[in-house]
């Protein structure tokens, strides 16, 4: 059985001494994790459990002519073999509800699920898969998103049909997916001002085309799920979802049952990074098998499956035009992108929502137009991934900013400062930057990275004959830092109780995904209640216990769940101080909580020991406990249909300066140093925030230099860690991070969200640094030795925007 994740701090029982804010607080779950005691989903086994495996398509695009499961069903130890025919009640899943968990009439990519087996062991399940015979009739394969827009392109989503030629989703079912008339999965358009007028007022216009590649999350813990039904038909799911409450509802819809009958327990998660924001077919399939067999069913991926069948960051072709006055003031910006959606629609299709914010509002741009089309292909499909489109948008915008600066003859720092946002600004898109440290970030990163001097010195060495060049580049970013109201509510609930011994149980809707949220939430509660971290237990992983939260995304947990936890703690504090006031006669306002006691605010003199005071309330004739609840809803707005509105309660900013060494003989680029300055509002847990930023920087390094999911004609060429290159320990750069504390008025203790920010700038800053080193601009990621070598030796093809309107 999974344990409730209820831990106390490794800090021991030292009484709190002063504020914990800004200190280096070890993560509460670290001792268990470092000793291998933590039970991830892979480590959990339920009595009577069966093991499931999925048969995936061996074709990229084909009609399913027949599926023969007889031999697999006859194999001893096999309890069920299912295909779409066995679950006629299945419903499409995903953001556009265009994806049936088990495919009916056709497969659209290599990952497609055709059949699934539940057996006594993984080995038997695998053997059974080998006995299933599928006959395909190949269809034309479409893997180029530009070709997908052609009028005569093969259709990826015609109306689905069953083997009998009839509609594969039976009439009368709640969702009747009728297919798509063309290959356009989603279009998102945004406009502000008058781009033509902006262009007319420009002294200079620059146009660039950029190409962004496939990368994938590579969570060290592979995907997995355990599904179990009780005799009454209630579903218990052990799942690593980042959005348990949204999924509870989706699984209920899938089964056509009341969401109250779905319980999700989240065991500790072996990495998330956005990968677990959507439902993927393996989860419904495990549920189908559990329902059909009446047994708990566990389904865990292999690493190869993880590469083939989990979502990717979305590959994007992007055209960007901007203009400015001769003084370097931006006049307009126009962006068009083509997203390769892959065969189905997940959150990847909605990343323009974030991309357009960077395009419209990272700098002041009076006139702006943005358009994305996401098109279906027979490639792997794209999901959400830390940064959510912002790595792509920032790569383009910030490389382009350097191009504009150079064309103007202004240094990149001055050009950015000239166009940077200030506190108080309300952008045409409706974002209100109540705090904004962008200019401080720019100046601090430039100064600590010795940017201007190095930038000039490196350029002077372009033709000095040395084959190894040094370069320095900068990039800035804007990202939501106070949640993102993409649903009608962006809130989080907290239940807080204090027991007879002044031990606090903090029950929060916010999921811990390794980022350290439970520690920072406990810390915020301790700050209110004057208690040591060891006095708090956090419960955060069971939808039957925890109050609602929208999920772990948009760098929102510290901000939203933090404010929620503070709200609950303040209510408890009010109750305690009112009680103390009634007993000692001092006004409640003159009292405070510190070091486990009620104290006089003015002098610090101890009035009551907290535990004793609480017991005196409990064991009195008016017997009461200290139990509070709080729901925090940030003062942000759901954007209108034009994508305008103040979507976040705060915005995070950063500038990163990257220094590279380019070996012109080999094309090898080494990231030497990253100097970052991050507007984080306020540092809460210094150890935690450093960890988030360092990890993000190295993830950005992988995006820029080493990681590349090689998808060729729909085949994934490198579904393994040997050929998909994650950055390893010897390759990391020197990292210097400064925190710009803008003390956000809405943030918990002044803090903003920071989870996604550090990964966002690196690729752009590295591109600018390679240019600074060599005078050659790369516009396609990643900067592998081969690509860099070709560019340096004049063998790179310039990118063209040849996308039909």
């Amino acid at each position: 059985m999974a344990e409730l994740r209820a831990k106390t701090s490794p800090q021991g029982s030292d009484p709190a001494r002063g504020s914990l804010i800004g200190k280096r607080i070890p993560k509460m779950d670290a001792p268990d994790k470092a000793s291998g005691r933590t039970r991830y989903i892979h480590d959990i086994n339920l009595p009577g459990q069966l093991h499931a495996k999925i048969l995936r398509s061996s074709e990229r695009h084909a009609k399913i002519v027949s599926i023969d499961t007889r031999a697999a069903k006859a194999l001893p130890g096999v309890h069920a073999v299912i295909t779409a025919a066995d679950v006629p009640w299945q419903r499409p899943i995903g953001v556009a509800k265009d994806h049936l968990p088990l495919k009916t009439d056709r497969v659209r990519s290599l990952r497609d699920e055709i059949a699934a087996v539940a057996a006594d062991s993984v080995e038997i399940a695998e053997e059974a898969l080998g006995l299933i015979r599928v006959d395909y009739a190949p269809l034309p394969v479409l893997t180029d998103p530009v070709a997908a827009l052609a009028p005569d392109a093969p259709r990826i989503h015609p109306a689905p049909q069953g083997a009998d030629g009839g509609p594969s989703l039976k009439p009368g079912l709640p969702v009747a997916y009728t297919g798509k008339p063309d290959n356009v999965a989603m279009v998102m358009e945004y406009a502000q001002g008058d781009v033509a007028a902006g262009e007319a007022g420009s002294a200079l216009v620059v146009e660039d085309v950029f190409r962004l590649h496939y990368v994938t999350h590579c969570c060290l813990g592979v995907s997995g799920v355990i599904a179990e039904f009780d005799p009454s038909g209630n579903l218990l799911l052990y799942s690593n979802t980042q959005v348990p409450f949204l999924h509870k509802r989706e699984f209920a819809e899938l089964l056509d049952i009341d969401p109250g009958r779905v319980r999700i327990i989240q065991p500790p998660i072996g990495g998330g990074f956005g990968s677990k924001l959507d439902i993927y077919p393996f989860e419904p399939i495990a549920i189908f098998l559990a329902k059909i067999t009446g047994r708990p069913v566990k389904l865990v991926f292999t690493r190869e499956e993880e590469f083939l069948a989990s979502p990717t960051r979305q590959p994007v072709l992007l055209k960007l035009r901007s203009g400015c006055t001769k003084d370097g003031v931006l006049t307009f910006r126009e962006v068009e992108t083509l997203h390769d959606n892959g065969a189905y629609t997940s959150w990847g299709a909605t990343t323009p929502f974030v991309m357009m914010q960077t395009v419209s509002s990272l700098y002041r741009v009076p006139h702006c137009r943005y358009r994305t089309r996401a098109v279906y292909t027979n490639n792997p499909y794209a999901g959400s991934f830390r940064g959510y489109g912002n790595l792509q948008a920032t790569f383009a915008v910030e490389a382009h900013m350097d191009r504009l600066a150079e064309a103007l003859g202004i240094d990149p720092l001055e050009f950015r400062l000239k166009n940077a946002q200030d506190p108080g600004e309300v952008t045409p898109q409706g974002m209100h930057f109540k705090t904004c440290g962008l200019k401080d970030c720019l100046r601090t990163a430039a100064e600590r990275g010795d940017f201007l001097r190095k930038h000039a010195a490196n350029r002077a060495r372009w033709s000095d004959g040395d084959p190894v060049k040094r370069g320095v580049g900068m990039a800035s970013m804007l990202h939501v830092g106070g949640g993102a109201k993409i649903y009608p509510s962006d809130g989080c609930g907290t239940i807080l109780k204090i027991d007879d011994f002044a031990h606090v149980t903090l029950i929060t809707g916010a999921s811990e995904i390794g980022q350290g949220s439970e520690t920072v939430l406990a810390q915020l509660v301790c700050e209110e209640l004057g208690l040591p971290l060891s006095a708090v237990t956090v419960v955060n992983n069971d939808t039957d216990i925890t109050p609602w939260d929208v999920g772990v995304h948009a760098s929102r947990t510290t901000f939203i769940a933090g404010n929620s936890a503070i709200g609950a703690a303040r209510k408890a504090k009010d109750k305690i101080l009112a009680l103390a006031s009634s007993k000692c006669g001092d006004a409640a306002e003159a009292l405070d909580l510190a070091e486990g006691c009620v104290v006089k605010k003015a002098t610090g003199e101890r009035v009551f020991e907290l535990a004793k005071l609480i017991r005196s309330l409990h064991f009195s004739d008016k017997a009461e406990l200290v139990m509070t609840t709080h729901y925090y809803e940030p003062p942000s707005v759901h954007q209108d249909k034009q994508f305008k509105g103040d979507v976040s309660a705060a915005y995070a900013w950063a500038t990163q300066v990257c220094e590279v060494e380019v070996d012109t003989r080999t094309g090898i680029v080494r990231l030497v140093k990253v100097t970052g300055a991050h507007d984080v509002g306020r540092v809460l847990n210094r150890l935690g925030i450093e960890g988030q930023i360092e990890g993000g920087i190295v993830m950005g390094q992988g995006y820029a230099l080493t990681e590349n999911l090689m998808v060729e004609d729909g085949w994934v060429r490198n579904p393994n860690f040997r050929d998909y290159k994650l950055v390893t320990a010897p390759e990391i750069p020197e990292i210097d991070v400064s925190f710009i504390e803008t003390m956000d008025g809405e943030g918990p203790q002044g803090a903003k969200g920071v989870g996604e920010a550090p990964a966002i700038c690196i690729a752009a800053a590295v591109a600018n640094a390679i240019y600074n080193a060599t005078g050659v601009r790369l516009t396609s990621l990643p900067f592998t030795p081969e690509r860099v070598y070709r560019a340096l030796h004049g063998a790179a093809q310039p990118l063209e925007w040849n996308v039909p309107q």
Partner: protein
Amino acid sequence: MPARIDIAFRLNGVGKRASVAPETSALEMLREVIGLTGTKYGCGEGECGACTILVDGVTINACLMFAADCDGRDVMTIEGVNATPRGEALRRAFVEHGAVQCGFCTPGIMVQAWHLLESNPHADQATIQRGIEGNLCRCTGYKKIIEAVAAAEAVERGQTPVEQSREVQRG
């Protein structure tokens, strides 16, 4: 039924007998047969280091070793490393230096770091970086892991590492 092989070996200092199928890996045996789940499956092909164990004092990827080949060997897993003074020092350093985020790679890196310090008690930073290059971590960016191993090494030498100071500004 496929043939099974009876083996005997030392596991974390205690004699152990097991009956395993010829194709069973040491990783599967540890996790599924014996029930020691601190050793993790990350890739199954020796590329990520999440299943690092010590066999006769040398680190190997348990996913690449047949269980049958444990016969007669001395095997130590994260559970055994924990019980040693060096394992304790490493755990404390990993916790205090923030070297743990999702934690999935951590046991493998702990075992690798234990072996590194065993074979090179005076490892400098570059040696530590080289020493753990076979272990992938997606969360931390390795910096705090390297700092933690260096701190554990300093503790072994009787020194306390100096905390790095960082600049904080108010805007």
